[in-house]
Protein backbone atom coordinates (compact mmCIF):
# COMPACT_ATOMS: atom_id res chain seq x y z
CA UNK A 1 0.00 0.00 0.00
CA UNK A 2 2.79 2.37 1.01
CA UNK A 3 4.78 1.53 -2.12
CA UNK A 4 1.77 2.45 -4.27
CA UNK A 5 1.44 5.77 -2.47
CA UNK A 6 5.13 6.52 -2.97
CA UNK A 7 4.94 5.68 -6.69
CA UNK A 8 1.86 7.87 -7.14
CA UNK A 9 3.56 10.70 -5.28
CA UNK A 10 6.66 10.43 -7.46
CA UNK A 11 4.56 10.39 -10.63
CA UNK A 12 2.71 13.49 -9.38
CA UNK A 13 5.96 15.33 -8.71
CA UNK A 14 7.32 14.33 -12.15
CA UNK A 15 4.15 15.55 -13.87
CA UNK A 16 4.41 18.91 -12.10
CA UNK A 17 8.08 19.28 -13.07
CA UNK A 18 7.45 18.29 -16.69
CA UNK A 19 4.50 20.66 -16.92
CA UNK A 20 6.58 23.43 -15.45
CA UNK A 21 9.49 22.79 -17.79
CA UNK A 22 7.11 22.67 -20.79
CA UNK A 23 5.48 25.91 -19.73
CA UNK A 24 8.86 27.61 -19.39
CA UNK A 25 9.88 26.45 -22.86
CA UNK A 26 6.64 27.69 -24.37
CA UNK A 27 7.08 31.02 -22.69
CA UNK A 28 10.60 31.33 -24.09
CA UNK A 29 9.39 30.36 -27.53
CA UNK A 30 6.64 32.99 -27.35
CA UNK A 31 9.18 35.68 -26.55
CA UNK A 32 11.07 34.95 -29.74
CA UNK A 33 8.00 34.66 -31.97
CA UNK A 34 8.19 36.57 -35.23
CA UNK A 35 5.79 39.14 -36.61
CA UNK A 36 4.53 36.64 -39.20
CA UNK A 37 3.40 34.35 -36.46
CA UNK A 38 1.52 37.24 -34.91
CA UNK A 39 -0.22 37.91 -38.23
CA UNK A 40 -1.14 34.26 -38.59
CA UNK A 41 -2.63 34.34 -35.13
CA UNK A 42 -4.73 37.36 -36.10
CA UNK A 43 -6.23 35.52 -39.07
CA UNK A 44 -7.16 32.41 -37.12
CA UNK A 45 -10.80 31.60 -36.42
CA UNK A 46 -12.65 32.87 -33.34
CA UNK A 47 -12.92 29.35 -31.88
CA UNK A 48 -9.20 28.86 -32.20
CA UNK A 49 -8.63 32.24 -30.54
CA UNK A 50 -10.72 31.21 -27.57
CA UNK A 51 -8.78 27.95 -27.24
CA UNK A 52 -5.46 29.77 -27.60
CA UNK A 53 -6.47 32.31 -24.97
CA UNK A 54 -7.26 29.50 -22.57
CA UNK A 55 -3.94 27.76 -23.27
CA UNK A 56 -2.05 31.05 -22.99
CA UNK A 57 -3.72 31.86 -19.69
CA UNK A 58 -2.86 28.42 -18.43
CA UNK A 59 0.75 28.81 -19.57
CA UNK A 60 0.86 32.26 -18.03
CA UNK A 61 -0.42 30.84 -14.76
CA UNK A 62 2.09 27.99 -14.77
CA UNK A 63 4.89 30.46 -15.59
CA UNK A 64 3.92 32.64 -12.65
CA UNK A 65 4.28 29.77 -10.16
CA UNK A 66 7.43 29.25 -8.18
CA UNK A 67 8.13 25.98 -9.96
CA UNK A 68 8.77 27.73 -13.28
CA UNK A 69 11.19 30.19 -11.69
CA UNK A 70 13.03 27.66 -9.57
CA UNK A 71 16.45 26.36 -10.47
CA UNK A 72 18.51 23.53 -8.96
CA UNK A 73 19.93 25.85 -6.30
CA UNK A 74 16.44 26.53 -4.97
CA UNK A 75 15.76 22.84 -4.50
CA UNK A 76 19.16 22.29 -2.86
CA UNK A 77 18.41 25.07 -0.37
CA UNK A 78 14.95 23.67 0.36
CA UNK A 79 16.55 20.27 0.87
CA UNK A 80 19.11 21.76 3.32
CA UNK A 81 16.36 23.55 5.24
CA UNK A 82 14.46 20.25 5.45
CA UNK A 83 17.57 18.57 6.88
CA UNK A 84 17.86 21.33 9.48
CA UNK A 85 14.16 20.95 10.33
CA UNK A 86 14.73 17.22 10.74
CA UNK A 87 17.71 17.85 13.05
CA UNK A 88 15.66 20.29 15.12
CA UNK A 89 12.48 18.20 15.37
CA UNK A 90 13.74 14.64 15.36
CA UNK A 91 17.24 14.99 16.84
CA UNK A 92 16.45 17.90 19.17
CA UNK A 93 19.48 19.95 18.01
CA UNK A 94 18.91 23.38 19.59
CA UNK A 95 15.30 23.24 18.35
CA UNK A 96 14.29 26.62 19.77
CA UNK A 97 16.56 28.36 17.29
CA UNK A 98 17.27 25.81 14.61
CA UNK A 99 13.58 25.34 13.80
CA UNK A 100 12.83 29.04 13.07
CA UNK A 101 16.19 29.38 11.28
CA UNK A 102 15.42 26.39 9.04
CA UNK A 103 11.91 27.64 8.31
CA UNK A 104 13.20 31.13 7.54
CA UNK A 105 15.63 29.49 5.13
CA UNK A 106 12.75 27.62 3.51
CA UNK A 107 10.66 30.79 3.13
CA UNK A 108 13.43 32.92 1.72
CA UNK A 109 14.22 30.38 -1.02
CA UNK A 110 10.68 30.22 -2.36
CA UNK A 111 10.85 31.94 -5.77
CA UNK A 112 8.70 35.05 -6.39
CA UNK A 113 7.39 35.13 -2.80
CA UNK A 114 9.44 38.27 -2.13
CA UNK A 115 9.54 37.67 1.62
CA UNK A 116 13.18 38.71 1.87
CA UNK A 117 15.04 41.01 -0.50
CA UNK A 118 18.77 40.91 0.09
CA UNK A 119 19.29 43.90 -2.25
CA UNK A 120 17.62 46.17 0.33
CA UNK A 121 20.58 45.50 2.60
CA UNK A 122 23.27 45.44 -0.10
CA UNK A 123 26.60 47.02 0.69
CA UNK A 124 26.06 46.72 4.41
CA UNK A 125 23.53 49.58 4.43
CA UNK A 126 19.76 49.70 4.60
CA UNK A 127 18.35 51.14 1.38
CA UNK A 128 15.48 53.02 3.00
CA UNK A 129 14.43 54.53 -0.34
CA UNK A 130 13.15 51.21 -1.73
CA UNK A 131 12.04 49.77 1.56
CA UNK A 132 8.38 50.74 1.41
CA UNK A 133 7.91 49.57 -2.21
CA UNK A 134 9.89 46.34 -2.09
CA UNK A 135 10.06 45.37 1.58
CA UNK A 136 8.60 41.97 2.48
CA UNK A 137 7.66 40.66 5.91
CA UNK A 138 11.10 39.22 6.60
CA UNK A 139 12.77 42.46 5.47
CA UNK A 140 10.94 44.36 8.18
CA UNK A 141 11.73 41.73 10.80
CA UNK A 142 15.37 41.62 9.66
CA UNK A 143 15.79 45.25 10.68
CA UNK A 144 16.03 43.97 14.26
CA UNK A 145 19.11 41.95 13.34
CA UNK A 146 20.59 44.62 11.09
CA UNK A 147 20.26 47.30 13.76
CA UNK A 148 21.61 44.94 16.45
CA UNK A 149 18.38 44.93 18.47
CA UNK A 150 17.55 41.21 18.76
CA UNK A 151 20.94 39.95 20.02
CA UNK A 152 20.92 42.59 22.75
CA UNK A 153 17.37 41.76 23.82
CA UNK A 154 18.34 38.08 23.91
CA UNK A 155 21.27 39.03 26.11
CA UNK A 156 18.89 40.73 28.57
CA UNK A 157 16.98 37.44 28.77
CA UNK A 158 20.18 35.39 29.09
CA UNK A 159 21.34 37.65 31.93
CA UNK A 160 18.01 37.21 33.70
CA UNK A 161 18.33 33.44 33.43
CA UNK A 162 21.97 33.24 34.55
CA UNK A 163 23.15 32.72 38.08
CA UNK A 164 26.60 34.23 38.45
CA UNK A 165 26.87 32.79 41.98
CA UNK A 166 29.39 30.03 41.09
CA UNK A 167 31.56 32.64 39.35
CA UNK A 168 31.46 35.04 42.31
CA UNK A 169 32.27 32.18 44.68
CA UNK A 170 35.28 31.18 42.59
CA UNK A 171 36.52 34.23 40.63
CA UNK A 172 39.42 32.21 39.19
CA UNK A 173 36.81 30.72 36.85
CA UNK A 174 37.05 33.97 34.88
CA UNK A 175 40.55 32.96 33.78
CA UNK A 176 39.21 29.71 32.35
CA UNK A 177 36.51 31.70 30.56
CA UNK A 178 39.23 33.93 29.10
CA UNK A 179 41.40 31.00 27.99
CA UNK A 180 38.48 29.39 26.18
CA UNK A 181 38.31 32.45 23.93
CA UNK A 182 41.58 31.25 22.39
CA UNK A 183 39.50 29.49 19.74
CA UNK A 184 38.16 32.85 18.51
CA UNK A 185 41.59 34.26 17.82
CA UNK A 186 43.12 31.05 16.43
CA UNK A 187 40.19 30.84 14.01
CA UNK A 188 40.63 34.49 13.11
CA UNK A 189 44.18 33.60 12.13
CA UNK A 190 43.03 30.53 10.17
CA UNK A 191 40.25 32.38 8.36
CA UNK A 192 42.68 35.14 7.39
CA UNK A 193 44.96 32.45 5.98
CA UNK A 194 42.07 31.10 3.90
CA UNK A 195 41.71 34.48 2.25
CA UNK A 196 38.81 36.01 4.16
CA UNK A 197 38.98 39.75 4.83
CA UNK A 198 39.80 40.78 8.44
CA UNK A 199 36.13 41.66 9.11
CA UNK A 200 34.94 38.32 7.72
CA UNK A 201 37.67 36.45 9.64
CA UNK A 202 36.62 38.15 12.88
CA UNK A 203 32.98 37.17 12.26
CA UNK A 204 33.98 33.56 11.58
CA UNK A 205 36.29 33.51 14.60
CA UNK A 206 33.52 34.55 16.98
CA UNK A 207 31.83 31.17 16.33
CA UNK A 208 34.48 29.88 18.77
CA UNK A 209 32.79 31.89 21.50
CA UNK A 210 29.91 29.38 21.25
CA UNK A 211 27.50 32.22 21.85
CA UNK A 212 24.75 32.63 19.26
CA UNK A 213 23.64 36.22 20.00
CA UNK A 214 27.26 37.44 20.15
CA UNK A 215 28.04 35.76 16.82
CA UNK A 216 24.97 37.33 15.20
CA UNK A 217 25.67 40.74 16.73
CA UNK A 218 29.27 40.87 15.52
CA UNK A 219 28.55 39.39 12.09
CA UNK A 220 25.65 41.78 11.46
CA UNK A 221 28.10 44.63 12.13
CA UNK A 222 31.19 43.33 10.33
CA UNK A 223 30.14 40.86 7.60
CA UNK A 224 26.34 40.83 7.16
CA UNK A 225 26.61 38.82 3.93
CA UNK A 226 27.95 35.86 5.96
CA UNK A 227 25.22 36.01 8.60
CA UNK A 228 23.36 32.91 7.40
CA UNK A 229 26.28 30.45 7.27
CA UNK A 230 27.83 31.81 10.49
CA UNK A 231 24.60 31.64 12.50
CA UNK A 232 23.88 28.13 11.26
CA UNK A 233 27.45 27.01 12.01
CA UNK A 234 27.35 28.57 15.50
CA UNK A 235 24.02 27.01 16.50
CA UNK A 236 24.77 23.65 14.90
CA UNK A 237 28.09 23.32 16.70
CA UNK A 238 26.54 24.52 19.97
CA UNK A 239 24.10 21.65 19.65
CA UNK A 240 27.01 19.34 18.95
CA UNK A 241 28.98 20.37 22.06
CA UNK A 242 28.34 16.94 23.72
CA UNK A 243 29.85 15.30 20.63
CA UNK A 244 32.76 17.68 19.93
CA UNK A 245 34.09 18.29 23.44
CA UNK A 246 34.44 14.87 25.18
CA UNK A 247 37.15 13.43 22.87
CA UNK A 248 39.25 16.60 23.28
CA UNK A 249 38.70 16.53 27.06
CA UNK A 250 39.80 12.89 27.32
CA UNK A 251 42.78 13.49 25.05
CA UNK A 252 44.15 16.41 27.06
CA UNK A 253 43.62 15.03 30.58
CA UNK A 254 44.85 12.03 32.53
CA UNK A 255 42.52 9.77 34.51
CA UNK A 256 44.02 11.16 37.72
CA UNK A 257 43.26 14.74 36.67
CA UNK A 258 39.70 13.86 35.69
CA UNK A 259 39.15 12.38 39.15
CA UNK A 260 40.14 15.55 41.02
CA UNK A 261 37.42 16.49 43.49
CA UNK A 262 37.01 20.20 44.05
CA UNK A 263 36.14 21.92 47.32
CA UNK A 264 32.53 22.91 47.85
CA UNK A 265 31.90 26.49 46.69
CA UNK A 266 31.26 29.07 49.36
CA UNK A 267 27.86 30.67 49.75
CA UNK A 268 27.38 34.00 47.99
CA UNK A 269 25.50 36.85 49.63
CA UNK A 270 22.68 38.76 47.98
CA UNK A 271 24.73 41.97 48.18
CA UNK A 272 27.50 40.36 46.14
CA UNK A 273 25.04 39.16 43.53
CA UNK A 274 23.50 42.63 43.21
CA UNK A 275 26.84 44.42 43.07
CA UNK A 276 28.36 42.03 40.53
CA UNK A 277 26.39 43.17 37.43
CA UNK A 278 26.91 46.83 38.30
CA UNK A 279 30.67 46.44 38.82
CA UNK A 280 31.17 44.33 35.69
CA UNK A 281 29.20 46.81 33.54
CA UNK A 282 31.16 49.79 34.81
CA UNK A 283 34.62 48.17 34.58
CA UNK A 284 34.17 46.50 31.19
CA UNK A 285 32.34 49.42 29.57
CA UNK A 286 34.95 51.91 30.72
CA UNK A 287 37.80 49.75 29.47
CA UNK A 288 36.08 48.63 26.28
CA UNK A 289 33.18 50.89 25.23
CA UNK A 290 32.47 48.74 22.16
CA UNK A 291 31.49 45.84 24.45
CA UNK A 292 29.15 48.04 26.50
CA UNK A 293 26.05 47.10 24.48
CA UNK A 294 26.35 43.35 25.00
CA UNK A 295 27.73 43.44 28.55
CA UNK A 296 25.25 46.16 29.56
CA UNK A 297 22.26 44.15 28.33
CA UNK A 298 23.54 40.93 29.92
CA UNK A 299 24.08 42.61 33.27
CA UNK A 300 20.78 44.52 33.14
CA UNK A 301 18.95 41.21 32.87
CA UNK A 302 21.02 39.77 35.71
CA UNK A 303 20.38 42.76 37.95
CA UNK A 304 16.62 42.38 37.34
CA UNK A 305 16.94 38.77 38.50
CA UNK A 306 19.07 39.38 41.56
CA UNK A 307 17.64 42.60 43.00
CA UNK A 308 14.30 40.93 43.67
CA UNK A 309 12.21 44.11 43.35
CA UNK A 310 11.25 43.74 39.68
CA UNK A 311 10.03 40.17 39.70
CA UNK A 312 7.51 40.82 36.91
CA UNK A 313 10.11 42.34 34.58
CA UNK A 314 12.53 39.52 35.31
CA UNK A 315 9.93 36.90 34.47
CA UNK A 316 8.92 38.76 31.31
CA UNK A 317 12.43 39.02 29.90
CA UNK A 318 13.14 35.39 30.79
CA UNK A 319 10.01 34.06 29.10
CA UNK A 320 7.76 36.15 26.87
CA UNK A 321 10.32 38.63 25.53
CA UNK A 322 13.00 35.96 25.08
CA UNK A 323 10.61 33.70 23.18
CA UNK A 324 9.29 36.45 20.90
CA UNK A 325 12.77 37.73 20.06
CA UNK A 326 14.01 34.16 19.51
CA UNK A 327 11.30 33.62 16.89
CA UNK A 328 12.11 36.89 15.09
CA UNK A 329 15.86 36.32 15.30
CA UNK A 330 15.69 32.73 14.10
CA UNK A 331 13.39 33.33 11.16
CA UNK A 332 15.26 36.39 9.90
CA UNK A 333 18.72 34.87 10.30
CA UNK A 334 17.46 31.87 8.34
CA UNK A 335 16.11 34.25 5.71
CA UNK A 336 19.60 35.54 4.98
CA UNK A 337 20.61 32.04 3.81
CA UNK A 338 19.59 32.54 0.20
CA UNK A 339 20.96 30.22 -2.47
CA UNK A 340 23.18 33.04 -3.82
CA UNK A 341 24.85 33.62 -0.45
CA UNK A 342 24.76 30.10 0.98
CA UNK A 343 25.78 27.83 -1.90
CA UNK A 344 29.34 29.12 -2.00
CA UNK A 345 32.63 27.40 -1.35
CA UNK A 346 33.16 29.81 1.54
CA UNK A 347 30.21 28.23 3.42
CA UNK A 348 32.18 24.99 3.65
CA UNK A 349 35.23 26.95 4.86
CA UNK A 350 33.08 28.62 7.53
CA UNK A 351 31.74 25.25 8.69
CA UNK A 352 35.31 23.89 8.85
CA UNK A 353 36.65 26.93 10.70
CA UNK A 354 33.70 26.75 13.11
CA UNK A 355 34.64 23.29 14.33
CA UNK A 356 38.29 24.36 14.63
CA UNK A 357 37.16 27.34 16.72
CA UNK A 358 35.18 25.10 19.08
CA UNK A 359 38.03 22.62 19.42
CA UNK A 360 40.66 25.25 20.22
CA UNK A 361 38.30 26.98 22.66
CA UNK A 362 37.77 23.72 24.52
CA UNK A 363 41.50 22.94 24.51
CA UNK A 364 42.38 26.47 25.69
CA UNK A 365 40.24 26.18 28.82
CA UNK A 366 41.55 22.71 29.71
CA UNK A 367 45.20 23.65 29.19
CA UNK A 368 44.89 26.77 31.37
CA UNK A 369 43.27 24.69 34.13
CA UNK A 370 46.25 22.31 33.96
CA UNK A 371 48.66 25.26 34.15
CA UNK A 372 46.75 26.67 37.12
CA UNK A 373 47.17 23.36 38.92
CA UNK A 374 50.94 23.87 38.86
CA UNK A 375 50.62 27.00 40.99
CA UNK A 376 47.52 26.75 43.17
CA UNK A 377 47.12 24.84 46.42
CA UNK A 378 43.55 23.72 45.82
CA UNK A 379 43.59 21.73 42.61
CA UNK A 380 41.20 22.49 39.77
CA UNK A 381 39.65 19.67 37.77
CA UNK A 382 40.77 20.49 34.20
CA UNK A 383 37.46 19.23 32.85
CA UNK A 384 35.74 22.42 34.02
CA UNK A 385 38.05 24.42 31.72
CA UNK A 386 36.19 23.15 28.67
CA UNK A 387 33.01 24.81 29.97
CA UNK A 388 34.64 28.18 29.30
CA UNK A 389 33.21 28.12 25.78
CA UNK A 390 29.87 29.70 26.76
CA UNK A 391 27.16 27.32 25.42
CA UNK A 392 25.34 27.66 28.75
CA UNK A 393 24.58 25.19 30.34
CA UNK A 394 25.39 22.46 27.81
CA UNK A 395 29.20 22.78 28.19
CA UNK A 396 28.94 22.57 32.01
CA UNK A 397 26.81 19.45 31.71
CA UNK A 398 29.43 17.88 29.46
CA UNK A 399 32.10 18.54 32.14
CA UNK A 400 29.85 16.85 34.71
CA UNK A 401 29.19 13.81 32.51
CA UNK A 402 32.85 13.30 31.50
CA UNK A 403 33.93 13.76 35.14
CA UNK A 404 31.47 11.15 36.34
CA UNK A 405 32.76 8.63 33.81
CA UNK A 406 35.96 8.51 35.88
CA UNK A 407 34.47 9.07 39.32
CA UNK A 408 30.69 8.69 39.59
CA UNK A 409 30.71 10.44 42.96
CA UNK A 410 32.35 13.59 41.61
CA UNK A 411 29.91 16.47 41.08
CA UNK A 412 31.49 19.09 38.82
CA UNK A 413 28.36 20.80 37.56
CA UNK A 414 28.39 23.83 39.89
CA UNK A 415 32.17 24.22 39.54
CA UNK A 416 31.81 24.11 35.75
CA UNK A 417 29.04 26.73 35.81
CA UNK A 418 31.66 29.31 36.91
CA UNK A 419 33.79 29.09 33.73
CA UNK A 420 30.61 28.59 31.72
CA UNK A 421 29.10 31.96 32.65
CA UNK A 422 32.59 33.50 32.56
CA UNK A 423 32.67 32.36 28.93
CA UNK A 424 29.60 34.49 28.19
CA UNK A 425 31.38 37.56 29.57
CA UNK A 426 34.62 36.53 27.82
CA UNK A 427 33.01 36.11 24.40
CA UNK A 428 31.20 39.46 24.74
CA UNK A 429 34.52 41.11 25.63
CA UNK A 430 36.25 39.39 22.69
CA UNK A 431 33.44 40.57 20.38
CA UNK A 432 33.89 44.11 21.68
CA UNK A 433 37.64 43.96 21.03
CA UNK A 434 37.17 42.66 17.48
CA UNK A 435 34.46 45.24 16.79
CA UNK A 436 36.72 47.97 18.08
CA UNK A 437 39.66 46.86 15.94
CA UNK A 438 37.74 46.17 12.72
CA UNK A 439 35.65 49.35 12.53
Amino acid at each position, binding site marked *: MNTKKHILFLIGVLVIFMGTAYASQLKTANTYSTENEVLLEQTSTSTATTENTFVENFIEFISSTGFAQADWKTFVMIFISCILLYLAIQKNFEPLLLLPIAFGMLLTNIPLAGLFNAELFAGGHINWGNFVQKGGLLDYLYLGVKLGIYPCLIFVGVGAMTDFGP*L*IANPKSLLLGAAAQLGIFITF*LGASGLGFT*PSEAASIGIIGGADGPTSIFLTSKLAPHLLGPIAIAAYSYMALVPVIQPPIMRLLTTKKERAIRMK*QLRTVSKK*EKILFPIIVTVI*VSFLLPSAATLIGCLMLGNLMRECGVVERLSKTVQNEMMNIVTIFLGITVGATATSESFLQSQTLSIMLMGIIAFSFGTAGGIILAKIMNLFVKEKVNPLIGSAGVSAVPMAARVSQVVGQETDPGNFLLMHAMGPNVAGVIGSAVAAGILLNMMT
Partner: protein
Amino acid sequence: MEITQINWDSTLLVVAFGISMVFLILVLLVFIIKIFGLFFAPIVLVKKPKKKSRADNIPLQAVEEYEESHLTASCSAAIAMALHLYYDEDVHDIEKAIVTIKKVEKRYSPWSSKIYGLTNLVK
Protein backbone atom coordinates in the same frame (compact mmCIF):
# COMPACT_ATOMS: atom_id res chain seq x y z
CA MET B 1 43.58 36.33 -2.22
CA GLU B 2 46.77 34.33 -1.80
CA ILE B 3 48.33 33.60 1.56
CA THR B 4 51.43 35.61 0.65
CA GLN B 5 49.27 38.70 0.06
CA ILE B 6 47.82 38.65 3.56
CA ASN B 7 49.18 41.23 5.93
CA TRP B 8 50.34 38.77 8.56
CA ASP B 9 51.86 41.47 10.75
CA SER B 10 48.53 43.17 11.36
CA THR B 11 46.72 39.82 11.67
CA LEU B 12 49.13 38.59 14.34
CA LEU B 13 48.90 41.95 16.06
CA VAL B 14 45.10 41.63 16.25
CA VAL B 15 45.45 38.11 17.70
CA ALA B 16 48.08 39.07 20.29
CA PHE B 17 46.30 42.27 21.30
CA GLY B 18 42.90 40.56 21.40
CA ILE B 19 43.99 37.68 23.66
CA SER B 20 45.92 40.05 25.91
CA MET B 21 42.94 42.39 26.29
CA VAL B 22 40.52 39.54 27.09
CA PHE B 23 42.89 38.27 29.79
CA LEU B 24 43.63 41.76 31.11
CA ILE B 25 39.97 42.67 31.55
CA LEU B 26 39.00 39.34 33.09
CA VAL B 27 42.04 39.26 35.43
CA LEU B 28 41.06 42.73 36.59
CA LEU B 29 37.56 41.44 37.29
CA VAL B 30 39.03 38.51 39.27
CA PHE B 31 40.80 40.91 41.61
CA ILE B 32 37.80 43.19 41.98
CA ILE B 33 35.43 40.31 42.74
CA LYS B 34 37.93 38.93 45.26
CA ILE B 35 38.17 42.28 47.01
CA PHE B 36 34.39 42.61 47.15
CA GLY B 37 34.19 39.06 48.43
CA LEU B 38 36.35 40.04 51.41
CA PHE B 39 33.75 42.59 52.48
CA PHE B 40 30.47 41.07 51.43
CA ALA B 41 30.96 37.29 51.59
CA PRO B 42 28.65 35.84 54.23
CA ILE B 43 30.30 34.18 57.20
CA VAL B 44 28.38 31.22 58.50
CA LEU B 45 29.07 30.82 62.19
CA VAL B 46 28.30 27.57 63.88
CA LYS B 47 28.46 27.13 67.64
CA LYS B 48 31.44 25.00 68.63
CA PRO B 49 30.67 22.01 70.80
CA LYS B 50 31.69 22.73 74.38
CA LYS B 51 34.79 20.89 75.50
CA LYS B 52 34.61 19.37 78.94
CA SER B 53 37.59 18.48 81.02
CA ARG B 54 37.83 14.82 81.85
CA ALA B 55 38.61 15.40 85.49
CA ASP B 56 35.89 17.56 86.91
CA ASN B 57 33.39 17.72 84.00
CA ILE B 58 33.49 21.55 84.05
CA PRO B 59 33.50 23.60 80.80
CA LEU B 60 36.95 24.87 79.89
CA GLN B 61 35.73 28.26 78.70
CA ALA B 62 32.83 30.20 79.96
CA VAL B 63 32.38 32.12 76.69
CA GLU B 64 30.76 30.27 73.76
CA GLU B 65 32.99 29.86 70.68
CA TYR B 66 31.93 29.98 67.05
CA GLU B 67 33.65 28.63 63.97
CA GLU B 68 33.21 29.41 60.29
CA SER B 69 31.50 26.58 58.53
CA HIS B 70 30.15 25.66 55.12
CA LEU B 71 27.88 22.80 54.30
CA THR B 72 29.39 19.83 52.56
CA ALA B 73 28.28 18.93 49.03
CA SER B 74 26.37 15.90 50.29
CA CYS B 75 24.51 17.98 52.91
CA SER B 76 23.58 20.61 50.31
CA ALA B 77 22.36 17.92 47.91
CA ALA B 78 20.27 16.26 50.61
CA ILE B 79 18.68 19.56 51.70
CA ALA B 80 18.00 20.57 48.08
CA MET B 81 16.38 17.20 47.36
CA ALA B 82 14.24 17.41 50.49
CA LEU B 83 13.07 20.94 49.60
CA HIS B 84 12.34 19.90 46.05
CA LEU B 85 10.26 16.97 47.20
CA TYR B 86 8.46 19.08 49.80
CA TYR B 87 7.53 21.95 47.50
CA ASP B 88 6.71 19.83 44.49
CA GLU B 89 4.62 17.52 46.67
CA ASP B 90 6.21 14.54 45.03
CA VAL B 91 6.66 12.72 48.29
CA HIS B 92 3.77 10.41 47.64
CA ASP B 93 2.28 9.20 44.44
CA ILE B 94 -1.21 10.54 43.94
CA GLU B 95 -3.42 7.96 42.40
CA LYS B 96 -6.50 8.72 40.34
CA ALA B 97 -8.73 6.39 42.37
CA ILE B 98 -10.69 5.63 39.21
CA VAL B 99 -10.90 1.98 38.37
CA THR B 100 -11.75 1.05 34.84
CA ILE B 101 -12.06 -2.41 33.47
CA LYS B 102 -10.89 -2.59 29.93
CA LYS B 103 -12.69 -4.93 27.64
CA VAL B 104 -10.16 -7.34 26.22
CA GLU B 105 -11.03 -9.12 23.05
CA LYS B 106 -10.21 -12.78 23.27
CA ARG B 107 -9.17 -14.12 19.95
CA TYR B 108 -9.74 -17.76 19.20
CA SER B 109 -6.77 -20.03 19.44
CA PRO B 110 -6.67 -23.80 19.63
CA TRP B 111 -4.23 -23.37 22.54
CA SER B 112 -6.95 -21.81 24.65
CA SER B 113 -9.84 -23.80 23.24
CA LYS B 114 -12.08 -25.63 25.65
CA ILE B 115 -12.79 -28.32 23.10
CA TYR B 116 -9.21 -29.50 23.10
CA GLY B 117 -8.72 -29.16 26.85
CA LEU B 118 -7.22 -32.11 28.68
CA THR B 119 -10.15 -32.23 31.11
CA ASN B 120 -12.44 -33.27 28.27
CA LEU B 121 -10.64 -36.59 28.07
CA VAL B 122 -11.34 -37.47 31.68
CA LYS B 123 -14.74 -39.16 31.77
